[in-house]
């Protein structure tokens, strides 16, 4: 009971604080806070918007899990961004070149994406273990190499043959056959509710993300590898003395993190069927924030991915209704992150003290019992 109270206190406090600060911000910018909140909530209660939110939350979540795998062992993989974009490009190109039966085609594309992401992240892992290069520095540099170097070069090389009908829609890699595209899961929604209008499609990657989340939970809490990983994150010296090979763990964690990162681009791939000239960028960095807000916890990150997606989607709404400027959503994301970090920090200290006191009291009570 006490434990539940503690784990809820921080998010509730963070949420309350966020609302207070956001209200002040809105008011300071000359908007009506109540009106803005009203627009956000009423818009989010529409099914179409909810589909948008989930579609947006899916890559956020995958990205957060990728970052969290590193965070759990104090490894800062800032390179999720480069890993997913590079994996996305390679997987799309290969998927466009081959033709296979449906399930197989999809699997091949996804596996390619994961392997590419893993290998690209692995570079940073190997650099760290063999040369002592800090992974923050190497992954940031690898981001630049992926985005401004490899992607810029390969995109031009792999531009699909446009024939006579040259339009902006023909830009990008060779389109992948339908057999290689993950179908949407609108069927899931139809179980609960009416048909979806406005041509909205709920991404099939949502299911993949759920599986990744479950896999992350099982890996961390039930497997020996997960135990080793967490132990290395909490106390690398104790882990090493306990038989955990530190270097191998670094490489393994980077590979795993990059592998999950490789899946991020699959959301857009299922949607557009190729590597577009303007892929969605920034998901890797957003994932870091989502993981931070979700405390690297599988369910916590799901919640925070949805929250970030909701704020993202709301920015468009606020813009169109004129209740507030769209940047307020980004500001809110920042505020919620900051308040959460502070609230969690305070709570963990309070909890630590409480636990120490409870332990001491329990022992004292035991002693008096024995004495009596």
């Amino acid at each position: 009971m006490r434990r539940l109270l503690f784990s809820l206190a921080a998010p509730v406090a963070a949420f309350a604080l966020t609302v207070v600060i956001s209200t002040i911000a809105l008011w300071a910018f000359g908007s009506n806070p109540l009106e803005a909140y009203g627009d956000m909530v009423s818009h989010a209660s529409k099914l179409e918007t909810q589909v948008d939110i989930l579609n947006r939350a899916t890559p956020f979540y995958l990205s957060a899990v990728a970052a969290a795998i590193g965070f759990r062992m104090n490894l800062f993989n800032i390179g999720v961004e480069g890993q997913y974009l590079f994996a996305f490009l390679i997987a799309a190109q290969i998927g466009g070149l081959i033709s296979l039966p449906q399930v197989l085609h999809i699997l091949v594309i996804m596996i390619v994406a994961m392997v590419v992401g893993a290998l690209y992240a692995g570079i940073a892992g190997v650099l760290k273990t063999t040369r002592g290069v800090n992974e923050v520095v190497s992954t940031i540099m690898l981001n630049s190499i992926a985005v401004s170097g490899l992607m810029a070069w390969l995109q031009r090389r792999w531009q699909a043959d446009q024939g006579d009908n040259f339009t902006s829609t023909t830009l990008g890699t060779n389109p992948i056959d339908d057999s290689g595209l993950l179908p949407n899961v609108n069927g899931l929604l139809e179980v609960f509710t009416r048909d979806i209008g406005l041509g909205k499609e709920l991404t099939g990657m949502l299911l993949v993300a759920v599986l990744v989340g479950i896999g992350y939970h099982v890996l961390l809490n039930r497997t020996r590898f997960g135990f080793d990983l967490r132990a290395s994150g909490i106390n690398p010296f104790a882990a090493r003395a306990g038989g955990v090979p530190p270097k191998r763990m670094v490489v393994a964690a980077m590979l795993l993190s990059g592998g999950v990162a490789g899946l991020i681009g699959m959301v857009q791939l299922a949607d557009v069927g190729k590597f577009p000239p303007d892929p969605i960028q920034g998901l890797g960095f957003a994932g870091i924030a989502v993981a931070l807000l979700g405390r690297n916890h599988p369910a916590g990150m799901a919640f925070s991915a949805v929250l970030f997606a909701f704020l993202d989607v709301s920015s468009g709404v606020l813009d169109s209704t004129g209740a507030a400027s769209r940047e307020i959503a980004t500001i809110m994301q920042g505020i919620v992150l900051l308040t959460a970090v502070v609230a969690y920090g305070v709570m963990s200290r309070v909890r630590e003290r409480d636990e120490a006191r409870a332990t001491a009291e329990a022992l004292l009570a035991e002693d008096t019992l024995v004495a009596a």
Partner: protein
Amino acid sequence: MSTAIELVGITKRFPGVVANDAVDLRVTAGEIHAICGENGAGKSTLMKILYGMQAPDEGTMRVNGTEVSFASPTDAIDAGIGMVHQHFMLADQLTVLENLILGAEPTKAGGRLDFASAEADLQRVAADYGLDVDLHEVVERLEVGERQRVEIIKVLYRGAEILILDEPTAVLVPQEVEALFENMRELKASGATILFIDHKLDEVLEIADTISVLRHGKMVSTLANEGVTASELAELMVGSELPTPDTAESTVTNVVALEVTNVTVLSEDRRPLVDNVSLQIHQGEILGIAGVEGNGQSELVDAIIGTERVNDGSISLHGDEITSWSVRERRTAGVGYVPEDRHHEGLLLTSPLWENAALGHQNTAPYGSKWFINRDGARQQTELIREQFDVRTPNIDVAAHALSGGNQQKLIVGRELTSNPSLLIAAHPTRGIDVGAQAAVWDQIRQARSNGLATLLISADLDELIGLSDTIVVMFRGKLVARLSPSAVTPRDLGGYMTGAQTQTLTEAAL
């Protein structure tokens, strides 16, 4: 001669231990005063109090006759006291000059740094005290001895006239020690007062004017360095009475469990930390290693557990050569490990107790297997440890940091002994825990020994070492210098070997 420092009745308590117990110390101005004592005797605490890093619980301090109370090192510096720490606090990428003025930069108009005047000042300080150093060299490129000189100049530049040197020779090679002593004599000639911590008695006898010996937090003696012998000092440090060894029947067998052959471990700068060490431990035997800390014991332990690479020599366990095995392979093969610092290498402080119990055994039953963690098995085993080893905790889900030190230690000893090791490496297994818990841990180790466990025991606690060991070897400067029988050892011998005042010939030692 006037008195530079006078401490009267200084007492400092930490939970469960009195680090300084009514210590009196008088340091005459212009002398070199050595503070000796074993690890844990309270030397560092006393120096920290004098330098304002810690406040005493009781007692008064007078510097140059005025009563002082320091809230921070800044106050101590203002009073003319400077301290050179064992671990240097220099910025490697800056030049000597930049390091020296860091935090006390002279400025010209407009806040620009006045390097010219700083350089002139420093040249003068260096010349006054006969300290030679290139001001424009980058610290990174300096030898250890030179870095130490930079630290000393830094302290002098801040206006210190009383210098505290914390084990200044610990990091130096012999030639550098000579140079340091030369510098210390120059400093003394220029009127500085030097207070330094050391436990190498030959060095103390060479340089000090006065020697103070601390033991168990108490000031045992302060004597002038005239006609004192190393043996007498060693006896003062160790104490005149040694505990009687455990009289229980010997359980030593003929079966060799661990064999270490000519093992050498080098530091990064290729100095031997463990120097050609060979030893054997039989099943049912406890081999105790005595020695002042920092003489290679930790590195030897690391080499056996596998966290430190062996540069030369071999290690075998039950006849298997394990020199190139990973830590995990060694532990799975039955090596139990009680690390010297439970917070550093022993525990996951924020994790629940049952996870801490699994640490080191997570790949073996009942805690888990090659691939999975067995939560139920791990929890049951933790309950067992809690019961058998009397770990006082409300439940096994509290985080390890919530437990007292003694209970944390019992958990560690418990997890290692219940996993049926064939070799136990126990480094300071009862450090910092109360008497009751200590006796419990000793009993458990004795019991395991009678079941055939081979134990390597490292300890600074002579009660523990003599009370538990079947054989005692002494480690000094990376070498095993003596092999002693716990029932026949005298304080003078033990102290002598530990401090290098005495050495056995190799044949006598028969290692």
